[in-house]
């Protein structure tokens, strides 16, 4: 299964030229600055924008070609926009069931109780739409999209209009949904942390052009990755999260690359992602014992990159094969005589739990 898009568009000084094919599986993040054309591309995929000559194919279905046009309501999509856009004249349940009622019974794979449990909507069902907070509205919008059992979920910056607190509250629902529902998703975003948290693969977009899709790890491997524009380089570590010990710390990752992290109970256990900012990691040649940073990992330096602003990025590999990026000054690198192939201790000051 794949999603194939070919489109060309010129509007004033904005131009879009895309010829691409993404696997219809997992989460594909479409990452780029505002105005790069990602929303237009999504609207073309959805069929909300009818661009002449464009071609859209989903699996073996032709959604748009020279001779064919499948209207939005026949594409069986889930669409979630930046603002929740619940239908104001319907109740929460009315909104949730709007698409469900219009889905043929044979095609319904998700039921209201499952979806409300997945998104924590049980307590909201009886409430009028206008009484919901921004985050709650967005959860209802997600649930509403899910209840039409879509073949593809298109999310257009679903978290961008929410404040940081609300974002933190809704993110776990999104990532759970990505794993649990099995519905392929296209996520439009300009927030690197959303990509790192949710995406399986990344498509970078700039000036109306989409790059080849690459895996999240590949996207994070380049020191000049656009994902690093805001907070500097960072790595995503995948592993299993264990239960809390008597200090409230939980084990993460396999033996040899194991970290102790603090995580809220709500994070649950099982496979998860950690995000480690490269500037939150230090390097030591010996294992320092008397130090407050307790996460020490043996890593092997693969490469040293010079970054602008007098910084050096160490591309290192952990014992379990995952990449850990470390940012230090050129002066430190010189003092420690760091070189490729060397084993060093990475001291991880803090991690962010992503799922």
């Amino acid at each position, binding site marked *: 299964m794949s999603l194939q898009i070919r489109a060309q568009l010129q509007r004033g000084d904005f131009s879009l030229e895309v010829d691409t094919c993404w696997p219809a599986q997992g989460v594909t993040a479409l990452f780029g600055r505002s105005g790069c054309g990602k929303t237009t591309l999504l609207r073309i995929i*959805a069929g*909300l924008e009818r661009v002449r000559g464009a071609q859209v194919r989903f699996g073996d279905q032709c959604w748009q070609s020279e001779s064919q046009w499948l209207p*939005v*309501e026949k594409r*069986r999509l889930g669409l979630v*926009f930046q603002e929740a856009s619940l*239908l104001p004249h319907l109740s929460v349940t009315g909104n949730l069931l709007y698409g469900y009622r*219009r889905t043929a019974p044979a095609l319904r794979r998700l039921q209201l109780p499952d979806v409300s449990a997945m998104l924590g909507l049980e307590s909201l069902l009886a409430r009028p739409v206008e009484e919901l907070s921004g985050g709650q509205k967005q959860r209802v919008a997600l649930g509403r999209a899910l209840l039409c059992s879509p073949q593809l979920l298109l999310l257009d910056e679903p978290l961008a209009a929410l404040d940081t607190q609300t974002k933190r509250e809704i993110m776990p629902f999104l990532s759970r949904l990505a794993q649990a529902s099995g519905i392929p998703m296209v996520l439009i975003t300009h927030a690197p942390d959303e990509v790192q948290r949710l995406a399986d693969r990344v498509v970078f977009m700039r000036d109306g052009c989409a790059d080849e899709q690459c895996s999240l790890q590949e996207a994070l491997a380049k020191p000049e990755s656009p994902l690093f524009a805001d907070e500097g380089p960072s790595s995503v570590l995948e592993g299993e999260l264990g239960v809390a010990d008597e200090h409230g710390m939980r084990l993460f990752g396999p033996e040899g690359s194991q970290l102790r992290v603090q995580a809220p109970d709500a994070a649950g256990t099982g496979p998860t992602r950690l995000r480690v900012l490269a500037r939150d990691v230090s390097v030591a040649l010996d294992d320092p014992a008397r130090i407050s940073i307790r996460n020490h990992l043996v890593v092997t330096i693969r490469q040293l990159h010079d970054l602008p602003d007098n910084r050096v990025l160490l591309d290192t590999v952990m014992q379990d094969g995952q990449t850990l990026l470390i940012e230090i000054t050129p002066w430190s690198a010189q003092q420690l005589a760091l070189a490729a192939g060397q084993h060093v201790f990475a001291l991880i000051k803090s991690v962010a739990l992503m799922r």
Partner: protein
Amino acid sequence: MLMIELSATDWQAIRLTLTLCFFTTVILLTIATPLAWWLSSGRSALRVVVQTVVALPLVLPPTVLGFYLLVTLGPRGPIGSALESMGLSHLAFTFEGILLASVLYSMPFAVQPLLEAFNNLGRRHVEVASSLGAGVFDRFFTVILPLCRGGFIVAATLSFAHTVGEFGVILMLGGSIPGETKVLSILIYEHTEAMNYAAAHRLSLLLVVFSFAVLFVVYSINRRFQVAKV
């Protein structure tokens, strides 16, 4: 004071006026809804032209509209003669003729409030509904109509009321045929011409009260829904 004793002619004119207004309103809502939707969904030059044409009856003297309709729909006009060649009758001095005239004449009063309502609605809710599997008519009845109901009520009321107040166009195109084209406004004119002031007064007062009620309803709805400026 309002001891209304209406003559058979008066009743006939009232019935005719109400029939005319009813059909005008129904036809107008059917035409104005898609038209206003199209007007609200873009900014092309063609839209500006159409919007201007629709608004023309607002500024033209009704006699101008009436004159051109008479010329077009009459026995020698392009439409009138085409109808006659098909074995039908031309439309001058007929109920169908003044119905068509009323539709054109009251068009801006239906289109404007709907356009305003559709512009306020935006496209997002409709896009959401279509992504959830709702087809065109489904979207209209489950999203557009309930969310723009104020606009529809105002459009219907104004179309109806404005048609009641129609005079010049009907006089030009319809003449004054009892039961066919002699509507209230024409009848009042005739009563006055005949110096029958009491009869003219009764009907005029009736219209004043009716118009007040209609406008009152419209402005109350406007305050509640903020839908249209007329």
